[in-house]
């Protein structure tokens, strides 16, 4: 029940502010809305039991990314748009595809088809032991996904080096 | 004491020809035609001996299994299994490949290196189809088989439009296998839904909880794929072209082994995995089989090209095999497996004869041939025996298969359609003798025609023909030797339970 109490408002925040972020004419507003969306999704992660993810999400998407974007906005001195979004066929096309998929989903729900069988997905453990999850994640990083982790570190290093080199 | 059965390994059986084929292609291998031919022949004979070992150490209930994880989360394995059916058809494969390799001596004139490498690769793919334990392993080999088949038909073909025929073959088979792939995936998925675990092993499928209509849909989709290979009448037109335009050894393999993969797959999937659906389809399929038998026999009578006559006759015989499978009882199934073997040998023999005539006379029009019997008495003797076997004369192998098959269809419990079909299929004995005797009469009898060959059969051809005749006689006079092996097949019990 507490899960539901947290989930529904957060989901509402995410949906509303993401749409506002896309539709707003001022770029700074959309940035602020985006910060809200990212923070809310951090809450969603927390609800899902992934505390570590939530913390990372809040620090990176909630702080680092907006700072970067804000700096970019400041540097480039972007003017506000006259219209929020473009006109033309593109808009209708994307609208059509979204409507199509949503209609299909609604149809499926309406005729009562389970896309996946009921028993396939259920919560892993009702009493989530947070330390165990953390253990599992660290285990994952340092055993199964060690190679990926190392590669990723290298990639980060390369990016940092490249960007700082070119920024001179 | 050393246990010989330890040396029998299915991956070795399947992949050994491929390894030899790769050795032939490697750059350090001498580029001498004769060396390549002898090496390839040796490999194929070695493979024959190795497969015969499986038969020698065959024991009742003997099943050899090999399995390796492939895609773990989907339950797909890379596995081989050999039961009695696979044993019989594998030996048929190695025997016919041996014949084909020996016959290649005079028929293949260029590109020896790649020809023999592809031949060996072809053997691997077909053995893979026959011994696959998992549906995706089966599908892998089913598709891989097209590669060597295409090049063998297209690049070493005898006809002027061999490449076109090869393209037609690929097109038909590929479109068939698209349907088949959808069927296989549906089969896999609904098995997962029904049993709750991902498992691709053919003999572990369990579709009890799946509705009958859905099973019929899967069965029909699979049948379209297998029907192209078999072939069933409306989708058979690739076969005469491909068989006519391919070189003789390749025609032998196509008719002797490749068509049998269709029959094998129908037994494996439609009968073993989906018996409930097949029970409903079978009477309709039996009518198609009847059309196959009679229609193509009539077409064969009107042909003038000797290779086309043989090609149509093999469609007719494949219809008989289909009829036996459709009867869904022990007798019919035994008959059709027996006929798979018998017809494989017979049709290979017929193509050997066609090839010899083509090589000596450079003429394939039956109206221009004639009088071969006077010039080539030994070939005439062999041709008589093989043709008589093909029209189902007692004491030769063809008769046993036909009689058991038709009896099985007659004894079928499915519906009265089957009984009627069986009785209507009997005239095939008359019709087949019409076109086959036309072949014998116009090709061999009569005064000397335009073709006047100087030499009788060569030694290696003699060897192949005598082996074929001896196999036909042994199967025809002592059919129990083969039937006893087929009897132990446990698909049959499952199929009859329905």
């Amino acid at each position, binding site marked *: 029940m507490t899960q539901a109490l947290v989930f529904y408002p957060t989901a509402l925040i995410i949906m509303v502010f993401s749409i506002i972020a896309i539709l707003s004419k001022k770029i700074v507003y959309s940035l602020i809305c985006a910060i809200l969306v990212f923070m809310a999704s951090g809450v969603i992660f927390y609800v899902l039991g992934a505390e570590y993810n939530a913390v990372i999400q809040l620090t990176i998407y909630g702080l680092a990314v907006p700072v970067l974007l804000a700096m970019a906005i400041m540097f480039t001195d972007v003017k506000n748009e006259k219209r929020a979004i473009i006109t033309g066929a593109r808009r209708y096309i994307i609208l059509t*595809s979204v409507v199509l998929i949503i209609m299909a989903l609604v149809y499926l729900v309406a005729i009562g088809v389970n896309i996946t069988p009921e028993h396939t997905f259920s919560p892993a453990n009702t009493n989530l032991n947070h330390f165990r999850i953390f253990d599992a994640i660290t285990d994952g990083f340092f055993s199964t996904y060690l190679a990926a982790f190392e590669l990723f570190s290298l990639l980060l290093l390369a990016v940092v080096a490249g960007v700082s080199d070119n920024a001179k | 004491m050393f246990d010989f059965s330890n040396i029998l390994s299915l991956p070795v059986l399947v992949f050994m020809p491929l390894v030899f084929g790769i050795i032939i292609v490697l750059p350090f291998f001498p580029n001498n035609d004769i060396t390549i031919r002898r090496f390839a022949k040796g490999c194929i004979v070695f493979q024959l001996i190795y497969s015969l070992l499986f038969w020698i150490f065959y024991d009742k209930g003997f099943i050899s299994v090999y399995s390796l994880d492939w895609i773990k989360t989907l339950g797909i394995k890379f596995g081989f299994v050999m039961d009695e059916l696979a044993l019989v058809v594998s030996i048929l494969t190695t025997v016919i490949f041996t014949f084909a390799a020996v016959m290649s001596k005079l028929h293949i004139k260029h590109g020896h290196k790649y020809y023999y490498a592809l031949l060996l690769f072809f053997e691997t793919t077909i053995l893979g189809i026959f011994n696959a334990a998992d549906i995706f392993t089966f599908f892998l080999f089913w598709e891989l088989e097209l590669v060597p088949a295409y090049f063998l038909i297209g690049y070493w073909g005898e006809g002027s439009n061999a490449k076109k025929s090869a393209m037609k073959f690929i097109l038909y088979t590929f479109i068939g296998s698209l349907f088949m792939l959808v069927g296989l995936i549906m089969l896999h998925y609904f098995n997962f839904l029904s049993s709750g675990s991902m498992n691709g092993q053919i003999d572990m499928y369990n579709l009890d909880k799946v509705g009958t209509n859905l099973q019929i849909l899967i069965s029909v989709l699979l049948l379209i794929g297998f029907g192209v290979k078999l072939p069933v009448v409306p989708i058979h037109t690739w076969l005469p072209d491909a068989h006519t335009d391919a070189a003789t050894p390749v025609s032998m393999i196509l008719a002797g082994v490749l068509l049998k993969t269709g029959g094998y797959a129908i037994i494996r999937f439609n009968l073993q995995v989906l018996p409930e659906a097949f029970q409903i389809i079978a009477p309709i399929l039996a009518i198609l089989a009847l059309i196959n038998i009679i229609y193509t026999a009539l077409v064969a009578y009107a042909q003038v090209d000797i290779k086309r006559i043989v090609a149509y006759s093999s469609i007719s015989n494949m219809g008989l095999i289909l009829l036996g499978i459709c009867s869904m009882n022990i007798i019919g199934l035994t008959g059709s497996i027996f006929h798979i073997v018998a017809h494989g040998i017979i049709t290979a023999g017929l193509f050997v004869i066609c090839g010899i005539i083509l090589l000596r006379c450079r003429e394939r029009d039956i109206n221009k041939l004639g009088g071969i019997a006077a010039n080539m008495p030994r070939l005439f003797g062999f041709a008589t025996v093989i043709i008589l076997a093909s029209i189902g004369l*007692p004491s030769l192998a063809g008769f046993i298969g036909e009689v058991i098959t038709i009896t099985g269809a007659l004894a079928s419990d499915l519906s009265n359609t089957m009984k009627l079909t069986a009785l209507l299929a009997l005239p095939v004995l008359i019709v087949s003798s019409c076109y086959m005797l036309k072949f014998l009469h116009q090709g061999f009898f009569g005064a000397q025609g335009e073709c006047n060959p100087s030499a009788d059969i060569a030694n290696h051809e003699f060897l192949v023909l005598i082996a074929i005749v001896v196999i036909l006689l042994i199967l025809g006079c002592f059919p129990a030797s083969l039937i006893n092996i087929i009897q132990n097949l446990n698909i049959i019990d499952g199929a009859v339970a329905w």
Partner: protein
Amino acid sequence: MSEFFRDNIVWIILYPLWVFLLIGAARLFAVRMSKKLLTSITLLGSSFGIIFAGGTLVNTIQGGASEILFTFIKVQNFLLQIGISIDTLSAVYLLLLFIISFFIQLYSSSYMRQEPKYYRFFAYLNLFNFSMGLLLVSPNLFQMYLGWELVGLVSYLLVGFQYINPLKSIASVKVFIINRIGDTAFLAGILSLIYIMWTYSSAQFVTLDFSDFNLISSVAYAHTNNVTYFILCLLLFFGAMVKSAQFPFHTWLQDAMNAPTPISALIHSATMVAAGVFLTIKLLPLFTLSREVLIFIVILGMFTALFCSLCAICQDNVKSVLAYSTSANLGLMLAAVGYGNIDLAVVFLIVHGFIKAALFLSYGMINNEYCDKRQIELSPSFIVGAFALSGLAFAGLNCKELFYDTFSQNVFLTIEFMLVTFMCAVYIFRLCCKYPFTKLNRFHFVEQISVWSFLLIVIAATFFINGSQLGFPFWAAFAGAITAFVITIKSKDSLLGSVTRICKEGFFIDRFYSRNIYSIYGKIANLVNKIETFISNNKILFKIAKYLVKTAWRIEKYIFELPVSFCILCTRFASKELEIAQTRNIQTYIAYGALIIGIIFTAVMLTYSFIINTLGGIG
């Protein structure tokens, strides 16, 4: 002692097979083999056959039955056995087979001495002995079918023996196919019988043993209605009918006369064609239950006798006359079997076999196809055979009297039989009057031995068969002989003009087959071939593929690229410098990608739900 013969007769039947395989292997591997050795090993087989068959006959008459059985095919409850089971009838028939074979092999060694394919000829003779033996000793219907097909095969091979001659090879194909029709009907009968027994009897295996036939026929009769039973019997009788060259199928015997003369004597008059009578006798328990079948057999037999005798009168070719006569006499035998007088049929079968063989041999002795002779001449032994065949003297007379006694209750049959006897005398004596007789020289010594042995057997048989008296048949035959003299001397065959021609052509039945049935078959085949060519040349798949490719190209060109080209136009208009670069609008591409994915996604989901809902789905 006779048990020894009986138990070891299997070797005598297998011996010719081994000789056949030996000759075949020798020819294949090009091993030289002297003709004398070949002839002597063949003759050895036949002479031992005579001794063993005689011993077996004595044993079976004394009442010892012997049966050896092997499993040939066993699949679940489908059991086919082969083996040996000899009763008196088969023993008698075996004796007949081996005696005739022996003398004809002797005859052939002289007759065929100029033939280059001498080896092949003797190999076929041995194969014939084996397959006929297999047929005769069969314990069940299935083995009979095996032998049935094999003798048909030997007949085909020997008719087409001179395959260089196209006419003869066509004749051989016709012989084989007509025989094949009968065989197929026979096989259909066997399978139907097996099926009926599976369904209605409690026995686990159905082997169709002749010893069980009383049971089988009662079960089959009890569980089928009249029409089905009649059809079943007819299917089985069909085999006998074709093999014995009865009415609609008698034409193959005419074609079979293309074989060398010793073969006409051995296969096409004495032994193989009589196998139909043998089968009918064996299946009599089945046929007796249905009155209609018996009536059918009698009527068919009598009709064939009449019809073929009529045809025989007008023939000029001696072998044709003899072939028609064979059909006619086999018709008489079948009628006797149908009438229930089995003994008479068997006796007449033996007597007729010897007489016919003697007639053929004495004709062939002079008119050897390897000697270049213009004029047909006959030997003195021919007239002795003619007397016997027509029923004027010797064993033929006895048999005709017995026939008369049998048919005497039925007026219609009696009249018909008298007519047949009359015509028989007419055609055989017409030959005697028409062709001159010749003297024999010393080259014919070996052939003479065979001919006179047969004739002596016929003459000797006169004293062992009851009923030697000068009754009505004798006078009918006598009248026939007189008529033949009158016809030949007076009018030289122009007696009835067109009627003669019709008779001569065998009422155009053969021509009907070759002009209509064969050509209709050919036309059907051509028609079907046209359909086939249409299907395969139409290249439907190619067309569909080509059409799909074309359509896809068009869609690509005119629909999907429309916005792109529109953009091109717009940007060209806007800025000429960037005209090439502006074609790539990634956002538009993303939009279209999303649309396509959306369509596919929707389609997959809808198909899935359709499958689940309409086809039953899970559970």
